[in-house]
């Protein structure tokens, strides 16, 4: 554990490197994120129109970003929102004119993934909010991703079309059949270039697999299967089969009165296709081996930290509930987020985490109030950088935190348009908890708990991060040198 201390204005992994914002995409700049009456006209726009940045349009619930995910190369960034829409950004190739500047992200495609549904049997409305998006590893020219709401997972295929055939023999240019008597010679149709069109089509719909709310999906390293987890069960699907799934974890008690624990997140191991982990509301992690049994109710390993007796309270269990779990890229570690901390676990050590980092320990004395306003139930995500040396997670007041595992330095940054200009270096923030107060410090009592950064993502190889702040997406880049170190 190390205490929060202000880092220099620097990217934590390289102390002397300033962090520059490459592009800021506000709620108005991304056509897909604005609740405009006519959506159709925006689908052809591939560039961000920066004039929208100043147009602080109305904010509707539908625009709230609910998930952010880079694809495996980092070329594409997908966001899902509360309105069931998915917006994909693509990184522009490096400009030849400025070889040192890295490509920026522009809107690539927008589509409606899920619609609100009504379950007539139970008289319940099923929200269209996208809970998670996961990319499939690219196997051909097309890109594929899985997106899910509370109940249904969908596989989407994204393809590009930049050529069209011309010179049909039997059809004219408008597609009408020609009068055969006018055809005097035969020609071979040729492919002519056209304006790039990005087409998205739903390829599979995996429905009726879950009674409870889906909280996570994870694609297996075998690229053939994936799993989906709800509060009580985890199912294994084959990507090509939609009418059947295999239940691999079931923690529903025979008597619901005995229910004391739910599944909160799950993920496949990045390299071992038989291993996966799931976390619980009681703060435990279970590593399961699918080779051991068809139903993985018995874990192979149970990772649990004993409760700290000096910190016990009525809220101990709530704050220990794990909201996110992520394997490191190496596959050697797991990262978990609970209400106040992020923890790094070594797969070989079940008794306690390897490292614990305090995200906002100053909230420990405010738990009662945070329980009252339900903030204590907020689910924050966490992320590794490409080299597994830095971890990141969000907090309140549009702050997000980064911890360098090697130097043990940490930094608090803010994602907001007011405090950051495009291309400016992000200034570290500091929350003061009494005692000496510096000029730009924020006091604990003036934190805005409605501004939560729940969803963050890190480019798989470079120092580029995507931060979702309510309905705004921020993309920050380390401009000087974005190679992995």
């Amino acid at each position: 554990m190390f205490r929060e201390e202000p880092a220099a204005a620097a990217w934590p992994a390289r102390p002397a490197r300033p962090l520059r914002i490459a592009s800021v995409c506000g709620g108005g700049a991304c056509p897909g994120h604005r609740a405009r009456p006519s959506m159709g006209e925006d689908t052809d726009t591939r560039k961000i129109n920066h004039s929208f940045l100043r147009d602080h349009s109305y904010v509707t619930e539908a625009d709230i970003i609910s998930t952010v995910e880079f694809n495996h190369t980092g070329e594409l960034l997908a966001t899902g929102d509360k309105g069931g829409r998915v917006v994909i950004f693509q990184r522009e190739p490096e400009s030849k004119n400025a070889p040192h500047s890295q490509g920026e992200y522009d809107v690539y495609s927008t589509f409606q993934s899920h619609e609100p549904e009504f379950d007539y049997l139970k008289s319940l409305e099923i929200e269209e909010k996208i809970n998670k998006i996961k990319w499939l590893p690219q196997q051909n020219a097309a890109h594929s991703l899985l997106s899910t709401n509370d109940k249904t997972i969908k596989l989407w295929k994204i393809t590009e079309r930049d050529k069209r055939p011309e010179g049909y023999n039997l059809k004219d240019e408008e597609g009408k059949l020609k009068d055969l008597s006018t055809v005097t010679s035969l020609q071979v149709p040729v492919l002519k270039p056209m304006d790039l069109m990005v087409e998205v089509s739903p390829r599979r719909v995996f429905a009726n697999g879950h009674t409870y709310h889906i909280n996570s999906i994870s694609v297996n390293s075998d690229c053939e299967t994936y799993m989906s987890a709800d509060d009580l069960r985890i199912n294994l699907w084959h990507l090509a089969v939609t009418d059947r799934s295999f239940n691999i974890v079931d923690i529903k008690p025979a008597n619901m009165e005995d229910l004391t624990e739910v599944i909160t997140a799950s993920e496949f191991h990045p390299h071992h296709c038989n291993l996966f982990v799931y976390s619980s509301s009681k703060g435990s992690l279970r590593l399961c081996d699918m080779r051991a049994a068809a139903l993985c109710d018995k874990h192979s390993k149970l990772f649990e930290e004993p409760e700290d007796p000096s910190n016990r309270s009525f809220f101990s269990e709530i704050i220990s509930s794990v909201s996110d779990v992520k394997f490191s890229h190496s596959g050697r570690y797991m990262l978990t987020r609970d209400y106040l901390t992020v923890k790094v676990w070594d797969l070989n050590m079940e008794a306690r985490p390897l490292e614990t980092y305090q995200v906002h320990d100053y909230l420990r004395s405010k738990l009662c109030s945070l329980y009252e306003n339900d903030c204590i139930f907020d689910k924050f995500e966490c992320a590794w950088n490409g080299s597994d040396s830095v971890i990141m997670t969000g907090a309140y007041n549009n702050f997000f935190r980064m911890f360098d595992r090697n130097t043990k330095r940490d930094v608090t940054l803010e994602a907001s348009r007011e405090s950051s200009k495009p291309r400016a270096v992000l200034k570290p923030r500091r929350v003061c908890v009494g005692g000496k107060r510096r000029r730009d410090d924020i006091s604990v009592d003036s934190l805005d708990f409605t501004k939560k950064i729940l969803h963050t993502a890190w480019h798989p190889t470079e120092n580029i991060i995507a931060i979702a702040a309510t309905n705004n997406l921020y993309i920050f880049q380390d401009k000087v040198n974005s190679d992995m170190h």
Partner: protein
Amino acid sequence: TMLSKGLKRKREEEEEEEKESLAVDAWWLDPGHPAVAPASPAVASSSLFDLSVLKLHHSLRQSEPDLRHLVLVVNTLRRIQASMAPTAALPPVPNPPAAPSMADNLLASSDAALSASMASLLEDLSHIEGLSQAPQPLADEGPPGRTTGGAPPGLGALDLLGPATGCLLDDGLEGLFEDIDTSMYDSELWAPASEGLKPGPEDGLGKEEAPELDEAELDYLMDVLVGTQALERPPGPGR
């Protein structure tokens, strides 16, 4: 600083601790609020208890409750309840506390406040769709009804979520009714008094039985509640 340390220590020490904690931790309560004024140790827990009951109430009112939220609130409620001084409002339970589980502690302590809170909660929950036959343990109408006989007792609210349509097809139509269980209203968890006094059949209370809280006890409970609690309460029994 916490509301309750949880370590075993003398009762007075614990009360001292809670007294101190109350001053620091209960800043979320309006200082002028009557609940804070007496600063008695029971009040802190009981206010948190009330808050938790309200949260549970609110959570269960959702058309599809957030199971994680529900489970965390229920577990917190159990912690609070376990730490509160058991009141001797009702006759002692003849059953000895068997397993050390939280559920059994709930049964054994016969907490008047808990049962009364739950009772009013249950009454309000009858408004939830699909539970039109929810029994009203404190109403004068009589014994609770059940949608189907033989359904096992359970935290019925949680089971409201029911099976997916896929599973329904597997079970056939019987599955539809099996999972709609209203035993939440007559399960041990919510009516500890009756469970203790009359060990019912294995599947919970039958049609003929109702939690035995007569008018005199109801009035007493109301006095207890009105006397110790200052937060807004859901409508009490006997309205």
